[in-house]
């Protein structure tokens, strides 16, 4: 910057906007310490009048939080690892390894990105069932591992890399897998991080699919427990808010710790679009 500009108007606007962003969360936290009768008071009270922890008690006595947390985490890890592996390989081939029908096949991948995911439900369910995977952790993760989105993202990353390194490696006698593994993949780290973050987000948030592939009710992740809570405690808002808070907080913590990776990852997904 050539001249130093005043930044307080910028901060003023941003602080106003941030407040709007954060108010729902603050309200959620204030509510979960209130009693059920206090939340339906008109006009609403801002701070809890009589501080109560019953919402947490109700939540933890209703939802098997830790086992659902384990399922959420386990299926997330599986899905992320699978998706990254599958997408990196395919993305590299689409970007760098010519083969007949490459463009047509890639077009097919792209087209699938536009199809609403609910439309695949029945077919995917049939496959998971036929492989005897219902009620298992892999069932939660498998469709997401093969999402065309990852392949698309990785292809973009590899396309944008300078060909020099690759050629040098090839001249040294490396086979395509070695080139991919030792040269190209390390350079794609930011995109790998992006894919990890985005796949992790989708996995953590998924509601409908886990319900369908778990007919016996085993291996159900947190969103399912949370949705069930709403059916049961309709308008017991403190309990609902406590559930929403407790189930969301793990990912929020991960985000706060790894925010740099989150931002860099998501940014790299957009930059080269």
């Amino acid at each position, binding site marked *: 910057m050539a001249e130093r500009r005043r930044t307080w108007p910028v901060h003023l606007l941003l602080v106003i906007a941030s407040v709007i962003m954060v108010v729902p969360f603050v309200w959620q936290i204030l509510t979960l310490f209130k009693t059920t009768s206090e939340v339906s008071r008109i006009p609403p009270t801002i701070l809890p009048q009589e501080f109560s922890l019953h919402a947490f008690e109700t939540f933890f006595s209703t939802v098997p939080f830790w086992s659902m947390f384990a399922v959420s985490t386990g299926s997330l890890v599986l899905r992320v690892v699978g998706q*990254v592996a599958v997408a990196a390989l395919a993305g590299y081939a689409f970007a760098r390894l010519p083969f007949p029908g490459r463009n047509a096949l890639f077009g097919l991948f792209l087209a699938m990105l536009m199809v609403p995911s609910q439309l695949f439900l029945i077919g995917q369910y049939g496959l998971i*069932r036929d492989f005897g*995977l219902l009620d298992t952790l892999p069932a939660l993760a498998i469709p997401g591992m093969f999402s065309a989105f990852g392949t698309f993202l990785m292809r973009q990353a590899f396309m944008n890399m300078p060909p020099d390194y690759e050629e040098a490696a090839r001249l040294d006698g490396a086979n395509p897998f070695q080139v991919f593994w030792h040269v190209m993949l390390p350079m794609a780290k930011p995109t790998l991080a992006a894919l990890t973050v985005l796949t992790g987000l989708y996995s953590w948030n998924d509601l409908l699919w886990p319900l369908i592939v778990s007919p016996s009710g085993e291996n159900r992740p947190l969103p399912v427990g949370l949705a069930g809570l709403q059916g049961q405690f309709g308008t017991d808002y403190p309990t609902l808010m406590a559930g929403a808070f407790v189930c969301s907080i793990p990912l929020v913590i991960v985000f706060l710790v790894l925010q740099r990776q989150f931002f860099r990852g998501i940014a790299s997904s957009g930059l080269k679009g």
Partner: protein
Amino acid sequence: MKHTWTAALAVAATLLTACSSGSGSSGEAAPAEKVTLTYANWSEDQAPAMEQIAAEFQKENPNIAVKVQTLPWPEYWSTLQVGAAGGTAPDAFWMLADHFREYAKGGALIDLSDTVKSTGIDMTAYPKAVSDSYTYEGKIFGLPKDFDTNGIWYNKALFDAAGVKYPDDTWGWPQVQEAAKKLTDPAKGVWGIAAPIDAQGGYYNTILQAGGSIIKPGGTASDFAGPEAVAGLKFWADLQKAGSSPTLKQLSDTEAVSMFENQKVAMYFSGAYWAFRFHNNADLKGKVDVAPLPQGVKRATVTSGIGNAGYAGSKHPEELKKFLAFLGGTKAAEIQAATGTVLPAYKGTQQPWLDSMPEFKLQTFIDAIEYGVPLPVAGNTAEWQGLAAQYLAPAWDGAKPVEEAAAEYQTAVDEVLAKQ
């Protein structure tokens, strides 16, 4: 990046073992082997009672394990449907009258007619309205688990505060309308009654009380636009018009039963199934009771009940039939009654239920069987029932005359019925 590959291999290994173990276990079905049945329901409230029933059954049948699973209500039917169509539904599950026909017609339910004969189950022990709901083309596909009739749940404290006499069996429609008006106090945010667009607890009953029918005999056309049905619908629209009920919007934000639990409405027409919840609500201690529905031209209430049904594609049909017969028997009924969860369907097992919550005049619900009418079902019931809110809301809001809204709803329902 090395980790990626090790993990990917681990995934592949998991997949392979999962596949092989999956296909391995399905082949073996030796009779002496211990089998596991799954039993699905949608109620966390009732899950403990279901567990108890399952445990009792296992005591008698050590070779059959039963796993109770509770699904959230909003996802129950979609999950069950996908499972049943895909061959992996739970073995036993709760069924409702309005979904039953599609399942029975599609051959998704196990036929229990022979089991009933061979185990000597007395079908007359169940309220006829309920057992009929789970019979399709002469075959029995489900045994009644519980039943419910409707009554007026009312808040004594609010009645006392307004100086209004409690409802009783002498009440007719005008008494309800008058009381609702007197009980309403906008300054306190209290209304006399909740008047949502509720079929089972609400307008089906008043249509029947006015002498109407909901589905015409034969099941190919509905009867919402007849003068009796219009009178029955008007009962609710009038309550809205008089301001005696929270508006539809308020009832969308906060469901009627929650309004009642929050003590914002004094009367709520609904079923016996709430007794357990009100009983457990500390805020309502000593404040709630129940009275019969008011009389119109005659007395009437819709009766229905949950049925226990089995999946036709179950891998263990014999064990499943045995379990379903047990669910339909006295022991299961007694456990339900003793835990107070619901009104069991089996005749003579209801006393423990009455005793479990002596503060409510629960006998009201049992007496109502006399004038109970089965929940109307025809064609794709879930589909045409789903249209009700859309067509009837303008009548409740006062945006359209009841006659007009009713006629439009009838046309829409008949279109659905014509598709069959």
